[in-house]
């Protein structure tokens, strides 16, 4: 790796602002994430994607479940909902159907989305619900102290598998494709440009979109497995990841030390839930079908 020195000007002008500040609740800083954690990097990419997609920020909502990544909703200066453990997707489903002009982003972790919330993930993908699901996969339950997740690769040491994990893992990309997702991509927090571009891409398209982001957890996953710190994870991602756009998702399973296949795997057109609903109702009911108008009014 090339040694680089970051030139920091001696005097930072008083009015200098980080360009992502307008997207964040600065009154909630500092955030809770550990040094070396990758969640903040993904949030940075998300703000770039919001900026580049020219999305109307009043019409973007973020829904999170519980866990380290679940805290993203609290820091994003958007309409944001920190829901219950595993239930970000069904909450987002109700939000989207009641207010279809919203761009609804589900931002949560691997344990939240694929263990306790796994059922909701596959059904939302099956319905092709117009949701953008960003899964920060740190391969562990981090908030609760580093227990085994359905993504923890075999033989890793966790708080609940002190002698090594023996269960097979989910291949999230393959699961998402099989369940019906319109768009499936995977990046790591090393791939900030590509990740931001993928996020921008899904913000501009319809249907159920899934982006998996591998992200370091130096405090728990790496420490217990003697894998170094956040920088070591970056070096590892750089060394082991291989961009294979369009790769069959079945060949993209992750392991503890093997190759990390990244890229955009799936990008297909399918009518989304509301389009299918409208088509079926119009077919059956004709002129009697009334477009959903669910908003209730306030007085006067």
């Amino acid at each position, binding site marked *: 790796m090339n040694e680089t020195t970051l030139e920091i000007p001696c005097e930072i002008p008083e009015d200098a602002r980080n360009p992502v500040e307008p997207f964040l609740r600065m009154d909630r800083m500092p955030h809770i994430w550990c040094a070396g954690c990758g969640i903040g990097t993904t949030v940075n990419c998300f703000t770039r994607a919001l900026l580049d997609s020219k999305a109307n920020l009043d019409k973007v909502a973020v829904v999170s479940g519980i866990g380290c990544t679940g805290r993203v909703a609290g820091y994003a200066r958007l309409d944001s*909902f920190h*829901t*219950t453990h595993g*239930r970000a997707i069904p909450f987002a489903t109700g939000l989207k159907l*009641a*207010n279809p002009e*919203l761009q609804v982003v589900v931002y949560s972790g691997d344990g939240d989305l694929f263990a306790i919330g796994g059922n909701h993930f596959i059904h939302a993908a099956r319905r092709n619900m117009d949701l953008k699901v960003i899964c920060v996969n740190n391969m562990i339950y981090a908030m609760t102290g580093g227990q085994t997740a359905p993504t923890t690769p075999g033989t890793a040491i966790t708080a609940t598998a002190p002698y090594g994990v023996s269960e097979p893992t989910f291949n999230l990309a393959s699961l998402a494709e099989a369940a019906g997702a319109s768009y499936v991509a995977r990046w790591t927090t090393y791939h900030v440009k590509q990740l931001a571009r993928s996020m921008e891409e899904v913000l501009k398209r319809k249907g159920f979109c899934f982006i998996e982001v591998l992200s370091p957890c130096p405090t728990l996953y790496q420490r217990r497995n003697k894998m170094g710190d956040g920088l070591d994870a970056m070096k590892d991602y750089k060394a082991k990841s291989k961009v294979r756009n369009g790769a069959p998702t079945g060949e993209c399973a992750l392991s503890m030390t093997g190759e990390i296949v990244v890229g955009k795997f799936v990008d297909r057109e399918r009518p989304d839930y509301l389009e299918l609903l409208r088509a079926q109702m119009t077919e059956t009911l004709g002129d*009697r079908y009334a477009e959903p108008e*669910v908003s209730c009014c*306030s007085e006067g």
Partner: protein
Amino acid sequence: MHADPKGVLTGVHFIDGDHACCEGTLAAGARFAAGYPITPSTEVVERFASRIPTIGGIFIQMEDELAASIAIQGAVWGGAKAFTVTSGPGFSLMMEHIGYAAITETPCVFIDVQRGGPSTGLPTLPAQADMMQARWGSHGDYGIVALCPNSPQECFDLAVTAFNLSEEFRVPVMMMLDECVGHMTEKVVIPEAESIAVTPRRYTKRPPAEYRPFEPMVDLVPEMVKAGDGYRFHVTGLTHDERGYPSMHGDTQDRMVRRLQDKLKPLANGRALCETEDLDDAEVVVVSYEITSRVAQRALQAARRQGIRAGKFRLVSAWPFPSARIRELAGRVKAFVVPELNLGQMALEVERAAQGKARTISVSHAGGTVHDPDTILEAILEAAR
């Protein structure tokens, strides 16, 4: 404000309690429902699924009750009036989201058509054994409202009331039917839309810069916003301050949780819904609700014929419980007789409110059938002795 005529099926109908409930939700303005099939409650959303596409709204059958009970809350924050329907096992699964609705002050309605429990129990037969679960089923302290219709007509009327109370107090409201009331078919009169009062959502008129999502108004209830209107607000199930931001302070927790209970005090004190008869001279008062109140009616008539001064106190809102009314009665009657299809859940509450000033006689049955009116009559006779 009155009901939107689009959802109001004005006329005289011969329908069951589940269907009448559905018509009540539509009259109240519900345009979003999420559900998961479970006997004996499914007819509510079956009718909604049939009615809503021509009215303009959404029904979605979710993958389980956990999903249904949180999807409705997403819909509420998107601007809808929304509800879900279930029975015992599904109600158990929904408990976490009743807590979420309580802490996030999300107005929504849960309809529970009670069947025999615990667990799968008696799927097709009545019980009233979810009464304490409705009150205390989610962890932590919070306030809720629970209404107890005893006829299809009341299923309609109280479904409208349920939505109105949920909007006024920003609380989850439970509609506690039982299998008998849900499946009983009777005449239901649905009035003109103009004569159905509908409580509007308490949307703020403040601009985003001056708005704090959980700042209580004079009645302790905060004003609402919905997603997409430029407020960039945050909602969390964590303990939060007036800004809606998470807080780890004991004083914030105590202030928030007390307010979640205290905002319902007007309902507990004075506005509690109940139906009473012959209380002026009563020496024995039968406290009942849902289907059991109709069985008790026969026992009350028989008691009066035998010269017993028996009075009726029917709980229409079981929660908040009308403690003050019961306490006042306890000072001047000999006893309360409480028949219910559980092993004495509301009887305990009557006993608590009576503070030892009158006896409480529980007439319990675990469900699967209704009481024999004579069993209730015997308890009245014993109480009068």
